[in-house]
């Protein structure tokens, strides 16, 4: 079948932004997507506050632990520990359809409509010029693209000097979201010692989140219900489905789900042939189009390119921010309940500019703990279950969970290969290898030591460090790194086109050559916008 349209594969943040730009440019777009959707119909009275629901709703187990008890963890903290039953369809069937085999790398991928954006934490951060340069991205065009994306999704962010550090020169930013009582204590302490912190390169402030603090278009400001891990009430949090709903109203846009793209190739006249499997009836098929934008996530796109290269590429690199959680305790909260009104998302952000050049930043997102429930914490307490419940009741409101991201550079110990795997629908699997070298490990230890020292100065005492293991940051990039060299298979030209192929563009983070420790998704979306623009300019 030939279709005279641009084809975008994937409906995650990158895919929907690439498609939006193409539509704005007057192009016809077909979005092909594995597109798994939620088939359970759990109703959450989401207009209500978490505490109210806990006290009153006799059906709450359906969304807090799930009708099939899928929300009760069967192991210690692992990748995606924060996924709740209502969001767990995000990773459905990935083990069967796109398996990853590894001893030391556990990524999270999605084949769902909306991709990993179904559960993303909404953190939006602009890369500094140095970070953009290292990533291989053009600062000028990214600057403009950040603004375009910000206007589409709307961000609430800091209204003080911290804003420059996390959101650069963006305008139209909504006022900051309010802190809960736990984080307010830390912020007050920080303000008193700001100069001391800043002189060491540490900055604390309001997080910049794709969550509305003011009504905008047909979306409503957050009600601080603390139900954000379970529902998207009022669409105050931006998720890909919001943009997808808008796209679907445009007559130039068509969405086709249930399509698992397996390989891509050029035809003799440089059109693009897409081979796929229908994930429902398992039938195979092909589509020919004039231009293709791949937005399957860095691992998803790598998988398709490795398979399509027919042995010309043996390995591809992979980047993923080293990540750990550090539960800390704010002593001043002992005996105090947490604010009734709060969001569940990050309450504050700490930026540690390790060398003062905004190049190798370490970032900490601070969450307070409540709506993910006590039972998810019990495993981590070194006591019996009954005693853990008792102590957690006393301590829970004082917990500050710091999620620490470190930057990631490519190395020969971080790579992907495609291996035979008869159990999967495509008869292959990604084999992932990820090992930090001793210098990287040393740097991480050193930076975490500094961060811990300053956390203590805020009255926030680190209790332990939990590591979901490599792959746990859920930020992936660098599988098809940017390169100017011609005929270098497995790389992407700076305009987003895939080396070795014609009319195929990479619209996700596969091109990034460096992965800063700030959330990647805002930059992915900005890059997707630029790649989409480039694809309309270049006639190959």
């Amino acid at each position, binding site marked *: 079948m030939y279709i005279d349209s641009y084809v975008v594969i994937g409906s995650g943040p990158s895919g929907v932004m690439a498609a939006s730009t193409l539509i704005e440019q007057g192009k016809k777009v077909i979005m092909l997507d594995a597109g798994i959707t939620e088939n359970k119909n759990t109703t959450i009275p989401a207009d209500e506050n978490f*505490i109210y629901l*806990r*006290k*009153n*709703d*006799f059906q*709450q*187990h359906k969304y*807090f*632990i799930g009708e*099939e*008890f899928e*929300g*009760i963890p*069967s192991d210690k903290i692992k990748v995606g520990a924060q996924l709740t039953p209502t969001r767990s369809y995000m990773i459905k069937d990935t083990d069967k359809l796109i398996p990853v085999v590894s001893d030391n790398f556990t990524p999270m991928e999605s084949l769902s409509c909306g991709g990993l954006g179904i559960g993303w934490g909404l953190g939006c951060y602009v890369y500094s010029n140095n970070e953009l340069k290292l990533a291989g991205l053009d600062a000028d065009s990214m600057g403009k693209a950040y603004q375009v994306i910000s206007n589409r999704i709307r961000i609430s962010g800091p209204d003080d000097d911290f804003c420059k550090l996390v959101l650069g020169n963006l305008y139209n930013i909504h006022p900051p979201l309010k802190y809960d009582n736990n984080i307010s204590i830390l912020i007050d302490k920080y303000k008193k010692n700001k100069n001391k912190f800043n002189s060491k390169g540490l900055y604390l402030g309001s997080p910049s989140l794709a969550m509305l603090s003011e009504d905008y278009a047909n979306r409503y400001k957050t009600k601080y219900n603390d139900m954000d891990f379970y529902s998207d009430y009022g669409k105050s949090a931006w998720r890909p489905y919001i943009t997808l709903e808008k796209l679907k109203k445009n007559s130039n846009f068509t969405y086709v789900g249930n399509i698992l793209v397996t390989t891509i190739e050029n035809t003799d006249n440089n059109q693009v042939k897409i081979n796929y499997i229908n994930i429902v009836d398992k039938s195979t098929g092909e589509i020919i189009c004039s231009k293709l934008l791949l937005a399957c996530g860095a691992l998803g796109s790598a998988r398709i390119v490795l398979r399509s290269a027919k042995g010309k590429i043996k390995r591809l690199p992979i980047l993923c921010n080293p990540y750990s959680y550090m539960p800390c305790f704010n002593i001043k909260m*002992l*005996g*105090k*309940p947490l604010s009734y009104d709060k969001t569940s998302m990050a309450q504050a952000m700490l930026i540690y500019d390790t060398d003062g050049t905004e190049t190798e930043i370490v970032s900490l997102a601070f969450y307070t703990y*409540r709506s993910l*429930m*006590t*039972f998810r914490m*019990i*495993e981590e307490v*070194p*006591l*019996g*279950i*009954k*005693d853990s*419940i*008792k*102590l*957690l*009741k*006393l*301590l*829970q*409101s004082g917990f500050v969970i710091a999620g620490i991201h470190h930057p990631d550079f490519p190395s020969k110990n971080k790579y992907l290969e495609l291996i035979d795997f008869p159990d999967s629908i495509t008869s292959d699997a990604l084999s992932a290898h990820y090992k930090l070298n001793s210098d990287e490990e040393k740097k991480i230890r050193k930076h975490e030591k500094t961060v811990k020292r300053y956390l203590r100065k805020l009255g926030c005492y680190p209790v332990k460090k939990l590591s979901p293991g490599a792959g746990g940051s859920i930020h992936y990039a660098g599988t098809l790194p940017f390169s100017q060299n011609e005929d270098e298979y497995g790389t992407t030209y700076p305009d987003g086109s895939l080396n070795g192929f014609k009319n195929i563009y990479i619209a996700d983070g596969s091109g990034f050559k460096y992965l800063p420790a700030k959330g990647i998704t805002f930059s992915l979306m900005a890059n997707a916008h630029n790649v989409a623009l480039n694809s309309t300019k270049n006639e190959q």
Partner: protein
Amino acid sequence: MDISNSEDLLLEEAYSIGKYFFKDYKMTTAIANQYVSLHRYRQIFLSKKEQSLLNLCIKYPFLFSYVDSGLKYAKPKSALSQKLFCMAAILETTPENFDKFLLDKQMPFIIAVLNFILDGFWAVCKVIAGYIFVKTYFLDIKIKK
């Protein structure tokens, strides 16, 4: 037939475990149904040894506390600790037990500190005693009559 997960036995367990967690626990139909259906979705089967340990706790409820604490280190992956853990999750999502899990009203700082120290100390003691008890129990020591 697997007798360890028969409905009657499960209901008895649900009652005893709930009572162990909270003295004023009332087993509602909703909780009972959930505990039974949990065993349909999760394959939690006690070994013979675990079953007899649970029976012992049901008969002598004061033992629950030591078994719960002891299992944490002696047999952290045991089916029995899974049952206790899942029951805790079920209870947490019932309105009537809300205040057992979340602090609702402010407590004076000094009281909170004292609670923390005393409860914490007692909990650690139970882990030590429980560990010895559970380890000994699973050693399968036969006492000659």
